């Protein structure tokens, strides 16, 4: 295996008694689009600022191309940060903003001119090169911030909630745009976000952070299909959680019935657990008098390609969500108030300690 572009080894950051980043280790490969996903206060922004050089490390090391950069000041790191607020220089034109980083590198006038021109092409703002930042829309400002950071050809581009300030429609467009740019120029991107959808759509790999610790790091698909903790399972997508207990090698639901579930390792007899199952993995049918899990349809929600059912079941006090494809929905023809029976395969479940 080749050397990773970036290695975080036991990185620690304490603010007083608070461990903002707590023993964080991670490898990121060249050309990856990597997402740090977490709720606010999870330490993701602190981590990003440490990579940029704006926060010192309390412990551990950060290796870039195998060399420890944790003592290198931010203006000497081959790493650039795109700020959440974009932080454009208000007194400079778009072209001047973009040229700034190259001027700091003491590039020749002609080279700066050529590369700024190219970058303006890439971010599709050539026609606005002379405008000031306050004359641009949010999406345009975001592209300037991106261009200004990219023109330095950093080894690593850090993006702090890059789409947070945009409205929903624009956000969708920019997600694809960012991904396209990253492929085109071949720079490693690390994006910080609290938006799980953003992480899933854009990233090759996602790291889920909680309380400064790395909970899970995997491809979006792996995290979705095989979450390693209740928190990851809950953070990404919709998940049903059924309270249960382990007894005699079986998972017993709250109503005393054994339910189909993959038995986890490391949990022992008598433990309280939750059985996690995705809405699309549940099968429902009109009630025909069986003794298995059953429930009643509380509400239906139409989402175009699929239909969501909310069920009150005999398995838990919380309603359960079921997702049916349009075709399945047609076959079962369920509506509000209908009694249903419920089934699933053991292999589609995950069991976590409660």
């Amino acid at each position: 295996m080749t050397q990773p572009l970036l290695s975080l080894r036991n990185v620690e950051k304490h603010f007083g008694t608070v461990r903002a980043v707590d023993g964080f280790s991670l490898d990121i490969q060249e050309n990856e689009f990597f997402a740090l996903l977490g709720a606010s206060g999870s330490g993701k922004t602190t981590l990003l600022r440490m990579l940029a050089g704006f926060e010192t490390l309390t412990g551990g090391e950060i290796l870039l191309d195998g060399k420890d950069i944790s003592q290198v000041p931010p203006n000497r790191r081959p790493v650039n940060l795109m700020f959440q607020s974009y932080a454009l220089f208000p007194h400079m034109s778009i072209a001047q903003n973009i040229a700034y980083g190259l001027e700091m590198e003491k590039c020749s006038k002609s080279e700066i001119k050529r590369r700024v021109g190219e970058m303006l092409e890439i971010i599709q703002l050539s026609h606005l090169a002379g405008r000031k930042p306050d004359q641009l829309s949010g999406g345009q400002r975001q592209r300037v911030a991106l261009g200004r950071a990219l023109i330095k050809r950093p080894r690593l581009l850090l993006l702090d909630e890059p789409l947070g300030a945009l409205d929903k429609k624009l956000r969708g467009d920019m997600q694809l745009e960012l991904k396209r740019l990253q492929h085109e120029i071949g720079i490693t991107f690390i994006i910080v976000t609290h938006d799980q959808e953003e992480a899933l759509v854009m990233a090759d790999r996602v790291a889920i952070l909680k309380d400064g610790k790395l909970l899970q790091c995997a491809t979006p698909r792996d995290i979705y299909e095989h979450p390693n903790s209740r928190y990851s399972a809950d953070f990404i997508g919709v998940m049903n959680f059924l309270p249960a207990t382990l007894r005699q090698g079986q998972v017993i639901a709250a109503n005393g019935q054994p339910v189909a579930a993959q038995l986890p390792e490391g949990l022992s007899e008598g433990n309280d657990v939750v059985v996690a199952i995705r809405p699309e993995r549940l099968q429902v049918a009109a009630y025909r008098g069986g003794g298995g899990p059953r429930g009643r349809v509380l509400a239906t929600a139409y989402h175009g390609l699929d239909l969501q059912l909310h069920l009150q079941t005999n398995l838990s006090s919380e309603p359960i969500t079921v997702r049916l494809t349009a075709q399945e929905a047609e076959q079962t023809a369920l509506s509000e108030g209908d009694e249903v029976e419920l089934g699933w395969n053991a292999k589609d479940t995950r069991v976590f300690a409660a």
Partner: protein
Amino acid sequence: MASLANPRLMLVILAAVFAFLYVPISVLVALSFNEGGLPTAWTGFSTKWYGELLRNGDIMSAAFNTLVVALVSTALATLFGSLLAVGVEIRRRKGRFLETIIFAPMIIPDIVLAIALLSFFSLLNVTMGLHTVILSHVVFNLAFVCSVVRARLKTFDWSIVEASTDLGASMPVTLFRIVLPVMLPAIIAGALLAFTLSVDEFIIAFFTAGAGRDSITLPMQIFAMIRFGVTPEINALATIVMAVSVVALTLSQRLNRGGLPGQ
């Protein structure tokens, strides 16, 4: 209350208030152009009193002194006041005490400041003259510049400083290429305000200028002349001082749209 809502009556009240504020100043300006020089009769338009002014050696040397005091104290106050503002803003989490003691010279009555400075210079056995006037003006101008610059700094986006560093700039480069240009309107506004305050400051200059004729400033000169009655020359001089102040203040306020704190 119906009569108060009467728009015509409101206009009359407004006119009366403005008349009270501006008629005396208008009379002064008008009299400075009165050929005869007497406040009792208008004998025709003339700029001869302005010519007289230029030929009056005492006034010209006082004007020169005032210019020196205003320019030097403004330069010092602008430099240190701006730096102070940046420092206070960066450290603002340490509480508001620092702010209060910085801005105190703006609020303390001039006469108190004047006596305090006089006592201070006497205590140190400093020979008084123009230099002590300059130092004294720096004391209050520093507070005014600091307050104007700080008002602008409150809306300053500090992430652009980090962005500049991130793009490879050293701290001095960031200061000159990013912080200074963005802050420049506020700094100039503060400097213009300081200049204006210094030009027509009387009490503190009077107390700290010492005894010699060499350190008399323009307001002190006017005060000395006025003991023998208001001459047309004084009217002309006052008109010029006012014009300078108005221009500087207008510029200052235009540059600093947020308004002037402490004013």
